């Protein structure tokens, strides 16, 4: 067992180094001095308090989506629909705020209602994917993709239709909410301590659920072998559904935080790829909840830090994405290679 862990780590490190090597080649090819470029990324992510805060802002939704997909992965489900679930969270949160913004309800309560609405919206959308799978036999990957499209269409309809800014028809989003409905942030920043706190809490909850509870164990059993789990007495489809609901609620919360703390309005694309990125993080950490916090932080830092590549080295900002995707790709390939080698050995 112990030896396996070391071999495992070795492969992860190898994959990481290989990814670094390839990205370095890309950098050289793009005409940016690699060391300086990496330096720029580092200083872009950690060079100032502002940058660090930007990293934390990006970290929070990533923690939530990763925590969410760890649950669905544990249940053997590919919740590709997480983007849509996050979007629905944003839509529901916006809805909640709109319902109460002109009432006498205290702003703090409205904000809380918005977050709860967001969780409900995400869970609802996930439940749809779950129902499609459980009762309709539609693979959750296809159901989720479809629901992602529907979620985007719904946002566009709302932004251009019923919730448009007066006299404006633009993808830029709905009218920003009154400042009193913003989730409180650290002064002068868009960083919400509440958002970060809830996100970390979500990761802890998932960690405990998967590690030490009957729920987590049964979920894992369902994920690894549904038939056997059923024979062992686990109500299997209910557990799949639970997994969807929980993941959807986390994603919905992420969407709600984007609305209440970051953008203060609903706009298309509000999920911003955090859901897919969460899937990548989950794969990268081999579904081990304990690694979510650092690796999601690393990804967030890459996201923010690589903006400097464009500013300083005039490179495309998608570089961060290239590095992230390469990492995941190589680590998955590394895992495959490791399994082959271990089998032969």
């Amino acid at each position, binding site marked *: *067992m112990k030896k396996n862990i070391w071999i495992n780590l070795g492969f992860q490190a190898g994959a990481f180094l290989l990814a670094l090597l390839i990205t370095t080649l890309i950098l050289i090819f793009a005409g940016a001095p690699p060391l300086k470029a990496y330096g720029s990324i580092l200083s872009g992510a950690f060079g100032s308090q502002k940058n660090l805060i930007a990293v934390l802002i990006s970290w929070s939704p990533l923690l939530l989506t990763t925590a969410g997909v760890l649950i669905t992965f544990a249940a053997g489900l590919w919740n590709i629909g997480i983007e849509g679930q996050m979007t629905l969270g944003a839509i529901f949160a916006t809805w909640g705020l709109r319902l109460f913004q002109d009432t006498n309800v205290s702003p703090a309560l409205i904000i809380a209602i918005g977050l709860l609405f967001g969780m409900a919206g995400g869970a609802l959308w996930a439940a749809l994917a779950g129902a499609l799978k459980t009762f309709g036999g539609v693979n959750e990957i296809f159901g989720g993709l479809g629901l992602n499209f529907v979620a985007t269409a719904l946002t566009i309809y709302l932004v251009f239709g019923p919730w448009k800014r007066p006299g404006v028809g633009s993808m830029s989003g709905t009218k920003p909410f009154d400042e009193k409905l913003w989730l409180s942030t650290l002064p002068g920043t868009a960083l919400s301590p509440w958002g970060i706190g809830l996100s970390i809490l979500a990761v802890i909850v998932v960690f405990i659920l998967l590690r030490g509870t*009957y729920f987590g*164990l049964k979920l*894992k*059993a369902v994920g690894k072998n549904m*038939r*056997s789990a059923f*024979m*062992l007495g686990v109500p299997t489809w209910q557990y799949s559904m639970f997994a969807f609901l929980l993941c959807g609620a986390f994603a919905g919360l992420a969407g709600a935080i984007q609305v209440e703390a970051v953008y203060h309005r609903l706009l298309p694309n509000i999920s911003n790829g955090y859901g897919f990125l969460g899937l990548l993080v989950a794969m990268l950490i081999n579904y081990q909840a304990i690694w979510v916090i650092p690796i999601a932080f690393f990804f967030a830092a890459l996201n923010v830090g690589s903006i400097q590549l464009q500013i300083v080295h005039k490179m495309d900002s998608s570089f961060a994405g290239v590095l992230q995707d390469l990492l995941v790709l190589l680590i998955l390939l590394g895992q495959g290679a490791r399994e082959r080698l271990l089998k032969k050995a």
Partner: protein
Amino acid sequence: MKVELRNIHKRFGKVHASNDIALTIPAGTIQGILGENGAGKSTLMKILSGFIQADSGEILLDDRQVSIKSPADAIQLGIGMLHQDPLDFPPMRLVDNFLLGHAGGLFPNHKEVAWDIQKLNAQFGFALDPEAYVDSLTVGERQQLEILRLLWLGARVLILDEPTTGISASQKTKLFETLRKLAEQGKTIIFVSHKLEDVDVLCHKVAVLTAGKLMGEMNPPFDQKKLVELMFGKEISLGERYSAAAEGATLTLRDLAVEDARLQLSNVNLELRAGEVVGLAGMEGSGQGLFIRACCGLLRPVHGKVTLNHLDLTGKSYHVYKQNGATFLPASRMEEGLVPGLTLTEHFILAEETQGVFINQERGLVLAEERIRSFNIRGTPTSVVESLSGGNQQRALLALLRTPLSLILLEHPTRGLDIESAIYIWGKLKERCKQGSSIVFASSDLEELLQYSDRVIVFYSGKSTPPLDARSLTAGKLGELIGGAGWDEWETEQSA
């Protein structure tokens, strides 16, 4: 083709799975390889068929030294292996299954392949439909398919790993016929098994492996006692037949009718007494599966009534049956019993009653250690179940059963297990009977059925006999019934 192995060594970590094996098999021979589970039979065969490579040693085919680096190399050299779980690709047609392993040819000719399949069918008296889907085949039919496929690919040496597990008696007869025919054609057959009786009737010579070593070879007539000694290092006798049937019905079936897409089963009646063992005999897919699933809510009966411990549970789900003390251990252990990736401890925790939200890991560990000891499972609490051998997986499944239980349903409880494990498993089951559990088990092993059942129900293409007293049955009679002969007395009764 003549096959010769010289000084083959293979180690997996500390385990010396093949220890200086030297074996010569002349062309046209049916060579038996005997050994208990974990003796190194599969390793040796995997080396020969290219799935793994030996650490050292030589392989000679027709006196020419060869190097086999992959299954593709092996088949190119004319060596084909039939696995214990045939490695086919379920959701595809037979023709496609053939084409998949076929080297070369960008545009496969389906028609030609289908024609080839028909020709091979005719040669061996099989009835495989080239257009049928592989997942619709029984285990026996898949085996036939795999043999045809390997021959079609040009195999001159066929390796069969435990081929008689999971197939019906008549399929076994047919298989043996086929193998003899192939041997007459000069093909070399390597028959890996732990069943003495199979080796006895089929093989031209036998090699016995124990703990990675070749213990000895033997030519017919085989001395069973000696073979067992070679295998286990001691003599083992089958346990006494034991009947603990007491009064009081555990399970009652009244005019039960169940069906699936292929088969209908009707007019089934049974009153299962506490502590009783009922064996279900019949060829694969004759209705035992339907029967056993109807007994525990996995199949909803179309007609009739199921009563468990005097509770009418007709139409209720498996989980309701489970709550009322019934449990089912299906034949496919890793698909419908154990959860690969989870440890033994996790299995024991799952199988026990849920207590609160958080798992008491320490108690789980204690439980696991205790069960591992009492069920003699070769593994540790942190072993994942797929790392266990077949026999140990079966022991683990039994160890998962809660206490008390009123009804235990099993499919092929000892399939693929060596004699020692099989005896052990039955010992544990009989203990359950003493505690009042009733057992219903399906098996294709006639001796097992006769040995352990109090009563036997025979199935033949959707028909079933009433429960027959096992003491009044003989292997011959049972074989006849399984084959569809001698049913007249119940035909009239059922139609009446």
